[in-house]
């Protein structure tokens, strides 16, 4: 499972994440929340072994993640970037089949099994009927489901998603989140994603970590973490937190709290 120990990360000389110790529970949905530039995406990338730690470390199944062989890592963990590049003219089925890459040696062709798994992944995310369409021609929500199908075809038990809802309208956002919840429920997929919407996180996450200015401000289940005072401190927003029908926290009555500058948190 993923665990960070006093992890600090930097881009060149710029520190981005500072001294974060966090354990991601297996088989659960974890949401990373925080304002823009708080280090959520950077933290996610470090989980995938894409950034060397400046100090501290990221452990995956007890072994430092950058010591994992890339191919072996790709069988354990898949990642969906915030703005993935769509190869020119590629068809849905061909893109999804790219998820099978780590399962074969680089000189091997795809086998019948790969095509079957790619097809199952498309069926799971509801894009099977789009298989022969070019990805570029699809709507944002459909494209996001295709990317998730590709990650599923990778057959990993952990899926990292960097702001999977940011470029989608409200309906598609819920559709993607419901899909991830279903995959978590039915296949035990461990989901770790960064989100912007607190209520969506509260509704879908089992576990929430809140970042601000590169530091971990809170972690725990939604009702423990999403509180009026924390939201005001981290997001500078005044809000009323009530319990929704399912008992999860629900934020309403937003107003920018200009009087509480972020320097107050430190």
């Amino acid at each position: 499972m993923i665990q960070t120990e006093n992890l600090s990360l930097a881009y060149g000389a710029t520190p981005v994440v500072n001294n974060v110790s966090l354990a991601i529970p297996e088989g659960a949905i974890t949401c990373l929340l925080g304002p823009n530039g708080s280090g959520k995406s950077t933290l996610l990338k470090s989980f995938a072994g894409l950034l060397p730690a400046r100090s501290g470390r990221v452990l995956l199944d007890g072994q430092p993640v950058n010591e994992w062989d890339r191919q072996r890592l790709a069988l354990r963990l898949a990642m969906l970037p915030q703005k993935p590049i769509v190869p020119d003219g590629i068809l849905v089925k061909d893109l999804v089949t790219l998820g099978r890459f780590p399962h074969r040696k680089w000189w091997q062709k795809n086998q019948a099994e790969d095509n079957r798994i790619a097809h199952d992944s498309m069926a799971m995310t509801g894009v099977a009927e789009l298989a022969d369409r070019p990805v570029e021609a699809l709507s944002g929500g459909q494209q996001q489901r295709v990317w998730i199908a590709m990650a599923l075809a990778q057959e990993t038990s952990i899926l990292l998603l960097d702001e999977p809802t940011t470029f989608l309208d409200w309906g598609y956002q819920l559709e993607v989140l419901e899909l991830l919840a279903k995959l978590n429920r039915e296949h035990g997929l461990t989901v770790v994603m960064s989100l912007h919407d607190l209520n969506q996180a509260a509704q879908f996450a089992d576990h929430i970590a809140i970042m601000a200015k590169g530091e971990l401000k809170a972690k725990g289940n939604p009702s423990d973490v999403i509180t009026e005072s924390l939201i005001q401190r981290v997001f500078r927003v005044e809000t009323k937190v009530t319990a929704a029908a399912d008992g999860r926290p629900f934020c309403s009555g937003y107003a920018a709290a200009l009087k509480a500058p972020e320097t107050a948190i430190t």
Partner: protein
Amino acid sequence: MAAETALQPSSRVVSGLILGVVGLFLAVATGIQTGAVDLSWQQVWAVFTGDSTEHVHRVVFDIRLPRTLVGLLIGVHFALSGWLLQLLSRNPLAEPGILGISAGASLVAVIAFIVGDWVFSSGNPYNNASPALDYLSLFAMTGGLVAAVAVYFLGLSSGRLSPLKMTLTGAVIAGMLHALTTGTLAFWGHAHTELVAQWLAGSLYGAKWNHLSSLLPWTIIGLAGVGLLLRPLKVMQLDDEHVQTLGLPLNRWRAFALLIATLMAASAVGVAGPVGFIGLLIPHISRKLAGPGLSAQLLLCVVLGALLTVGADVVGRTLFSPYEVPVGVVSAILGVPFFLYLLSRQS
């Protein structure tokens, strides 16, 4: 409708390939038959059955056949190199000329030519006995590799390849290397200036069997390399970090692809000079015809690259015969309108 869109590209690929192969065959045959001395088809046929005059035999075997075959390989080299570079840098403008590879190869080849000449022909400019000529491809490859490595590393932006930065760096380095080549030629070119200038325009003039044998190993290595790259290249079209999370050691494969692209382009420069446009045009045309399938693009690149070069050379040496228009000039004149037509049809 789904079945139709799935079928369309592959039928276009097949007809493109068939037309390309037929066209290539005709271009090669015409290349052997026409020239300063026009031969009848019977005379050409007689050469291959073994009963022709010595004169005709010499025209076909010593001059036209090697020249045509060298042209064919050159076309394959530049087309595949451009195709790889465009994929690798995720930049539709990339090609060996724009990225400075051809310019690096040219500079070192010109220097080797002049130095070799100065050392070996002791003042007689018409004595081309310099052994440097036989190894021109190797010198060119050295120059091309140095330029490619420089452009690659200068094109990195905090550890990631930036297509924009790589293209700009390439253009600037290419400009500088061109200036150095021209300068070298102006100062030390002497009696060879005309010959070298013709070579720099991209010419198959005087292509012989020894040129073919210095090219062919690199064609084979290049094709084998591209074959190995086919599957990784599919994945490498994605975002850098995405590629890595799919388990591909990106830097290693990128370096290998760049190496293959450079070897192909630079070895061709060593023989025919920096023939422009083929490396830019043919990959685009192949992509337009083939759609997203990389193997289909690759096959079309090979056939169409050879066709354009051989065809352009035939046109170039017959149009104003006995004067020759270099193959680089003709291929640009023939290829660009077709390219513009494809572009305009797209949008």
